[in-house]
């Protein structure tokens, strides 16, 4: 039964990520990424990484992708700019490189294919177990991420302020 779930969510993940890359409407790209993130977090739950799966769902589907949808709707991309997107110059080169990467990755994982490793460890990534490591071994990096988020906030505010100033200048001239 778990293997059935794995194949279902794996197929959903691949289809959704293809849709992210190939769909023409930017809104569909973002919504396909929501589906991809949802199936990815389901795979995390199958791997018994409950905390990380939940965080992924909350942060990505809840916050980041809402940002994306907000920006797509804000930009109000017209039909002209959308058709222009599809005139890609290095299309074949990109396809070739990604197929080459997929093949090289396949050959790189050959050793794992032969080994047939199964999950015998009994680790369960609940909030309790992950949080215990987070607040002991990883305390300094955890505190530093708060600093990183603060710096990101400063960066966004300064960028928005620059946009506000140029908007005023254009309005006056």
């Amino acid at each position, binding site marked *: 039964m778990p293997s059935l779930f794995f194949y279902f969510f794996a197929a959903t993940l691949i289809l959704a990520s293809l849709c992210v890359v190939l769909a023409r409407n930017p809104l569909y790209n973002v919504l396909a990424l929501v589906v991809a993130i949802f199936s990815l977090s389901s795979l995390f739950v199958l791997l018994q*990484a409950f905390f*990380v799966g939940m965080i992924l769902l909350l942060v990505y589907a809840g916050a980041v992708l809402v940002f994306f949808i907000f*920006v797509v709707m804000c930009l109000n991309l017209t039909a002209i700019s959308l058709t222009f*997107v599809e005139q890609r*110059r290095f299309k074949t080169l990109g396809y070739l490189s990604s197929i080459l990467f997929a093949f090289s990755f396949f050959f790189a994982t050959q050793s794992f294919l032969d080994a047939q490793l199964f999950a015998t460890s009994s680790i369960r*990534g609940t909030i309790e177990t992950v949080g215990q490591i987070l607040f002991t071994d990883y305390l300094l990096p955890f505190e530093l991420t708060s600093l990183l988020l603060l710096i990101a906030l400063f960066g966004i505010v300064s960028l928005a302020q620059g946009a506000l100033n140029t908007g005023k200048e254009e309005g006056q001239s």
Partner: protein
Amino acid sequence: MIALDHYLLLSGLVFAIGILGVTTSRSVLKILLSLELLLAASNLSFVAFSKFNGDYNGQLIVFFVILVAAAEVAIGLAIIVLMYQRLSTIQADELKEMKW
């Protein structure tokens, strides 16, 4: 029971699709979305290795990757909005000059 190689192959496939998106799309928004796919694929590898090695450190790295990705996306989208205001397009090819 699913073996480790299934997870790794899935992660590699999603990573290849992400590379396809980064290299072929000309819209900056789509490139940013494909970057998210790349991060998601590597996260899957981390969690799979964490489970199969019986080591929690992989899951903690995924936690930090998600945090950094959130900050990266916020700044990237701010830059995209600025670019649209100045150039009224989000094509990567239009970014020809280093100075605004």
